[in-house]
């Protein structure tokens, strides 16, 4: 450190790197959170740098480093304690909000869009779509239930699907059936 006070960068680098395990051990002993402890180590490094002119070369360096690191770790714990009283970490809560319905927002929006799109279809198209696609009936039975011819059902279903695809922004496959 005496050499560092005189401006010897290599001695300073050696000293700080040699002290790093000690600083880390001290910070980890006080602070459980690894990231927070590492921040305390960096605070200590900055304080060591700021106070390097106050070190007395005839005294051992270790107690000087230890005292500074302990101080910074305690400061960080105190700050953390103060902040902890006011803030709630929300990182873990992105998927789970307090209201039970709140997490289904996207699905509900999609369903509403689909309902709106279906509402814009003609009555014949809605009937054809309901029988042929939702209830998955054979064309003959669908024709018997709706009173529409098989050909008309086919056309209505096809046009309904095309209209929905267009409305919901799904690319048309281009295959005509």
């Amino acid at each position, binding site marked *: 450190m005496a050499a560092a006070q005189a401006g*010897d960068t290599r001695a*300073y680098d050696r000293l*700080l790197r040699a002290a790093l395990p000690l600083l880390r051990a001290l910070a980890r002993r006080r602070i459980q959170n690894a990231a927070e402890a590492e921040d305390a180590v960096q605070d200590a490094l900055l*304080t060591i740098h*700021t106070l390097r002119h106050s070190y007395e070369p005839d005294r*051992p360096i270790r107690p000087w480093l230890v005292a500074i690191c302990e*101080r910074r770790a305690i400061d960080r714990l105190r700050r953390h304690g103060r902040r902890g009283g006011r803030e709630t970490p929300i990182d873990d809560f992105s998927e789970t909000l307090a209201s039970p319905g709140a997490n289904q927002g996207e699905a509900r929006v999609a369903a509403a869009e689909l309902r709106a799109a279906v509402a814009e279809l003609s009555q014949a198209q809605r009937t054809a779509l309901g029988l042929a696609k939702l209830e998955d009936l054979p064309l003959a039975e669908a024709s018997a239930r709706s009173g529409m011819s098989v050909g008309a059902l086919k056309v209505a279903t096809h046009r309904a699907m095309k209209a929905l695809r267009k409305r919901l922004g799904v690319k048309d496959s281009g295959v005509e059936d």
Partner: protein
Amino acid sequence: MRSEELIGELTAGLRPVRRMASPGRQAALWLGIAAAAIGLTVLLHGLRHDMAERMLLPHEVLQWLASVVAGGSAALAAAMLARPDRSWRWALLPVAPLLAWLGSLGWGCMADIARLGPMGEQIGTSWGCLRFILAMGIPLAAAQFWLLRHAGPVRPGRVLVLGGLASAALCSAGLSLFHHLDAAVMILLWHGGAMLLLTLLGWLLGRPVMLRRPSART
């Protein structure tokens, strides 16, 4: 940023620094300044009229010496505590002389009841004492805090209290040389009260100086 990278940056920006004087020398420097300032004021005012007879009373001399020693030891303790690696026990150094000073005043109060009558009649106002101790003590305490500002990142509170106490005790000792207060209870109230106030003010007003973010010295 990782700590290793931080070390790299700190090292890369390293500039030579002038080593700070030892705590003992810092305390001596401040005591010299304080003694000169207070001594000059005492000379300007002239010694109190009953100085010679007071100096013949061992009790009075001890009381005065106790306040001087309390001031000196508080200054040394503050300078020591400003260094991270010095023991916190330095803070106990001024306790004994301070207790001696208070004890001697308490004993004086008892003696005064026999000498001057009931204590209620001895109590008056002495705003001059308060004014002097604050007017002289605040600049001295400020000088002390400036000298010991490196304590900021380590032990600001204790250094502020001890620095304020050092200024107040020395001012009280200086004041006793030229200002006449007959009753011990008056000294206890006005000197003691002013010392307490100055210590408190020092702690409150000194915090911004001490806790100021250290300039990025690279």
